[in-house]
């Protein structure tokens, strides 16, 4: 499985990291701007800048999935009905809009409407991405779970990405309580985005168990061979998000700095958790087919 789908795993994870980080950085910027325009700009510009190369990297990974990569441009030819066409259009649109947002943000500190427009196109990219899988004939994918998992991952990865990128720039700085309060909000977004898919998990299993033989086969894989990876996935993600949230609230009461090592550890746990989760997502999908 891994040999076949690794480019897609990397594409979905990295693009969700890029889009989620972008949205949360725009959120930080918008919340901070009225109180401290300078901090809003200084803390987010680096991160916003990193999103473009990250998204470009994701798109390069997606090329490795194609048997005929030089024909990639033809993937835009069926926008009328193919979610894959729509995904490529919106992902490309996000990258172009990112560039203009980045340029605009470097010049001035106000004016977030371009940032939100780009965020919106980013969300459409995630929607298209999830729709590709939910329109397949694999019951483990053709399920509301795919939407919940992909949007959840976008905001969990985004929370980790945004805090890591801000942490990198704010290294050694003492931050204002306004900044810390906004970072706390980012953590809450990440926590909610993690909890909703977790709560939905029993519903997902229930659906699979009451479905056709392929659905039941997927459910057996998830509760059999992939049970341990699944438990590790949730343990890592939960510990990572709790660590990050804890850290930020402790720091906002205390010295108001962002300790690089602890942040890196929490972010690494979150990334590994999502990576394992995505691996299981691909590995557990069984086709309904003849047989």
């Amino acid at each position, binding site marked *: 499985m891994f040999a076949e789908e690794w480019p897609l795993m990397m594409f979905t994870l990295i693009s969700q990291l890029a889009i989620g980080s972008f949205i949360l950085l725009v959120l930080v910027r918008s919340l901070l701007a009225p109180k401290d325009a300078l901090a809003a700009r200084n803390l987010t510009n680096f991160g916003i800048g990193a999103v473009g190369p990250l998204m470009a990297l994701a798109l390069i990974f997606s090329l490795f999935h194609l048997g005929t990569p030089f024909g990639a441009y*033809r*993937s835009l030819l069926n926008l009328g009905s*193919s979610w894959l066409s729509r995904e490529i259009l919106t992902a490309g649109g996000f990258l172009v809009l990112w560039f203009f947002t980045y340029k605009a943000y470097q010049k001035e500190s106000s004016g977030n409407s371009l940032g939100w427009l780009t965020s919106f196109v980013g969300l459409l990219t995630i929607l298209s991405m999830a729709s590709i899988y939910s329109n397949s004939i694999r019951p483990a994918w053709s399920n509301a779970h795919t939407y919940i998992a992909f949007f959840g991952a976008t905001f969990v990865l985004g929370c980790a990405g945004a805090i890591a990128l801000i942490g990198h720039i704010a290294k050694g700085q003492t931050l204002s309580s306004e900044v810390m309060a906004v970072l706390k909000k980012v953590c809450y977004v990440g926590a909610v985005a993690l909890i909703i898919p977790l709560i939905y998990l029993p519903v997902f299993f229930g659906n699979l168990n009451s479905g*056709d033989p392929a659905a039941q086969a997927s459910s057996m894989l998830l509760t059999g061979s992939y049970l341990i990876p699944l438990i590790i996935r949730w343990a890592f993600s939960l510990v990572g998000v709790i660590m990050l949230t804890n850290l930020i609230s402790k720091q906002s009461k205390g010295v108001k700095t962002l300790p690089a090592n602890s942040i890196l550890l929490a972010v690494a746990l979150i990334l590994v958790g999502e990576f394992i989760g995505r691996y299981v997502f691909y590995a557990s999908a069984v086709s309904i087919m003849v047989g």
Partner: protein
Amino acid sequence: MAQLGFYYDMTICTSCKVCQIACSDKNDLEVGTLFRKVYNFEGGEFPNPWAYNLSIACNHCAEPKCTKNCPTGALYKREKDGIVMFDEGKCIGCKMCTWSCPYGQPKYIESKGKSGKCNFCVDLIDAGEEPACVAACQMRALEFGDIEELRKKYGSTADIKGLPDSGITKPHLTIHPNKEAMK
């Protein structure tokens, strides 16, 4: 012309696999890739064992998910007879079609970096001949033609044990099943 489809008579098929071989030959397929495949199902216990065969290819569906999900338009339905065509020049090998067909039909061909599938032997059809698989069957277990005619003659069973629900893509296939295969 109307929509083309296949009729398969399970009760007389001997599983000689000549259709499968004729198809692979016609399409120059490498070993391991089959556009038409004969499946063998068996079950039951002594003294009542049962077995049946199923020869199946692309069903040139009324609501094909392959054409809907293909991002390039390499898969499309031909107006005049509803054949689901494959344009190799357009295909980019994204494998979307292999995720979309309930019958596992489009096959990804590694050496080409593209997919491929049954095109109803469109060259033979256009020349007024029979598709290779139909012509090859000694038992006359395979027929092709206007699906409405075939359904009038043979009924319209497309749901048997072992096949996914026909509601998903509405296949143009009708089967004369053994009783063990009936749903």
